[in-house]
């Protein structure tokens, strides 16, 4: 009897337990918006410890469905909300619904995640970054390179492998808000382009191609607006192996620079993203 009763008691406990154990039932099934919400939650919470690819903690790969042991969706929801006692996994303030969306995202990601066809080598990737790719002519890593393009010092912390690969082969496909480029044509015909830092009803601020912080009154311009990123596609410029190498190198760029350590600050915050 003990064998049978115990699970019953466990089930009863589940049913009587407060909200973290309440099963979440979507009206039909999760929508694309739910998955997007889950992805955002991952990017703001889980990524700090599990990394963009979900594989930073040994033995766990959140985005390929590899956990310490098989979990039901409900168990994962509970873990997200209450953490795992006596481990580094902390509780969160997510509602049951938010956690459920996050779990849906993890499950979907595990089903759809593509496996890179070519394994990259980070040291070769650095060589491509420095020479053939000429990446430092627009990008900066730990103080070396141009400030015009996005700073890549911690890009491996923030972006998944697939995202890095996409940025290399199709750079206009998914431009982060803080990396958009903007063009201003002054009334005398002078054209100034650069990465957008901020804009409002009347003004626009950019860092121009000469790395100058520039501000323009929109009314004083002949035209102004967003433009495609000047980042070229490396789809044919680099071989598949070189692309994989660069992606592998970028993936190694994580918190190890000057901001690391106790009391170390996060990187600068572009104003569009708030604080």
């Amino acid at each position, binding site marked *: 009897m003990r064998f049978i009763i115990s699970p019953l008691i466990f089930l009863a406990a589940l049913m009587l337990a407060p909200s973290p154990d309440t099963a979440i039932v979507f009206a039909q099934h999760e929508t694309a918006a739910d998955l997007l919400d889950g992805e955002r939650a991952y990017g703001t919470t889980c990524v700090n410890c599990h990394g963009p690819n979900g594989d930073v903690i040994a033995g766990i790969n959140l985005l390929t469905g590899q956990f310490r042991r098989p979990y039901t969706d409900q168990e994962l929801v509970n873990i997200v909300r209450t953490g795992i006692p006596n481990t580094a996994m902390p509780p969160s303030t997510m509602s049951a619904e938010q956690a459920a969306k996050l779990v849906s995202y993890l499950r979907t990601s595990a089903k759809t995640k593509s496996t890179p066809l070519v394994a990259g080598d980070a040291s070769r990737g650095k060589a491509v970054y420095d020479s053939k790719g*000429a990446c430092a*002519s*627009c990008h*900066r890593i730990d*103080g070396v390179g*141009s*400030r*015009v*393009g996005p*700073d890549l*010092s911690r890009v491996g912390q923030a972006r998944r492998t697939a995202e890095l690969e996409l940025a290399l082969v199709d750079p206009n496909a998914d431009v982060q808000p803080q990396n958009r480029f903007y063009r201003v044509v002054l009334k005398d015909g002078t054209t100034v382009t650069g990465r957008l*830092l*901020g804009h*409002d009803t009347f*003004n626009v*601020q950019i*860092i121009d*191609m*000469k*790395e*100058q*912080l520039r*501000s323009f*009154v929109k009314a004083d311009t002949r035209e102004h607006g967003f433009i495609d990123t*000047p*980042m*070229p*596609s490396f789809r044919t*410029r680099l071989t598949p192996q070189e692309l994989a190498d660069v992606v592998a190198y970028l993936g190694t760029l994580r918190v190890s*620079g*000057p*901001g690391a*350590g*106790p*009391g*170390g*600050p*996060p*990187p*600068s*915050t*572009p*104003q569009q993203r708030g*604080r």
Partner: protein
Amino acid sequence: MSRRLRFALVVAACAVAVSLQAQVSFERVLQNEKEPQNWLSYSGALDNQRYSRLTQITPANVKNLQLAWVWQNRSLEKFEATPLVVDGVMYTVQPPNDIVALDAATGRPFWTFSHTPAAEGRACCGRVNRGVAILGDTLFMGTLDARLLAVDAKSGQLIWNTQVGDAKAGYSITMSPNVVKDKVIIGTGGGDGPIRGYIAAFDVKTGKELWRFYTIPGPGEPGHETWTGESWKTGGTGVWNAGAYDPETNLIFFGTGNPAPDWDGRTRKGDNLYSDSVVALDVDTGKLKWHYQFTPHDELDYDSTQVPVLANIEWQGKPRKVMLWANRNGVMYVLDRVTGEFLKGKPYVKANWLDGFDAKGRPNRVKFPTAEGTFVQPHVHGATNWAPPSYSPRTGLFYVATWENSASLMVEGQFPRAARPNGRETAMGATTLVPFYNRDDEAYGVIRGYDVKTLDQKWEFKLGDITWGGVLSTATDLVFGGGRDGYFVALDGKTGALLWKGSVGGQINAGAMSYAVNGKQYVSIGAGNSVFTYALP
């Protein structure tokens, strides 16, 4: 355009950018008079004169000054930073430790860099910061958790992050750093607690510590004998404000804070060097060249948090390189900055704790704590604090925001009590700096001009509340200042007459500064939680 050509052009454009960077060399900071449109250090120049050479705004047209823009920060802490302006970009600090780059013509932000101080980072008197320093394309900021950060001025990205002091042990930093040549030099706050303060120099490129000068001498060092027992280990003596640099002697000068414990000197008998002093350090080595102690064995928190002001003046008929100092202890000083020689000291507010000086400039103290309380002026908060003064080489006047006619009761071993002359509490006699409105002649905030040749007061402009606001003078003989009652004022630098006022609706706890963009002069002040910037129409 072919994709290959486009790629080549992009690479070329970005590559060219590296060679076109406008660098703020140390020569630019040092020779600031060549570019008065920029404000490249805390007081505008390393002599700390806080004197703008811009001339567009004059006594005749200042009445037309209008608000050009407001930038609101997102902090409820006191806003004490003086911004820098470099080629149209303003850099200021949102307290406690966020650097913000603003368009100086519109106040619109380019970027924000955020540093969240560790929880143990605390300061005695608010989670404040007084501003950044710049060299090349790098900004430097001290932090509440006693770190020194280097941040890229173009991108707002962190370059290095060095621990200056141990925040858990009570060290903190609120001052603007000093950049001199290839070093960034900063001191540690926290001196109201049991720290042993110091000033240290760091390599601007790497953040590596190059030298350290303890403001309390250790065993075997001259001055160590001015502390009894083990009191030197916890004698405070923090550093709260930017220093001044003299290129001719290669000396950097810092004011030092009070000894700890603040109000009870019984456990630290002696003069307690180098508390309440100015120390002159060789920039290359950090070695002490000279010092002058304003308040030996301080028991009233008369710390020298003021910035040293360097000037070349005519002194008793001869040119002399001097240092001007309106001290918290209520005395104004003229020192020879080459030798440290005491030239003159004169109370500039009611100060009864001394009755004169000996030949070497040591004050003759006449008030001591008693069990029943000794009436002492100025008040425990002093005649002024860290708010920066200004010197105009045109008018020869030293402009100081001060608190007049304040007093405390100095009680042995206790926090000073409110002084109660006339049977009632006097303004600012309370330890909480409450302004007094019942009698105009008791304790008030005031901006004054003093003749540096005589230290005589030439004029004053009384404020309706006390002031923690700094003072700016200009080459058109204007003086800008303000106080806790939320008015930013422009005064005639020769007479003190009020020429213009702007209501900023919040306390002024910062120093005013001036700059120009595209030929237009601006005057800017931090007040409340915002930067208010004014210009002519």
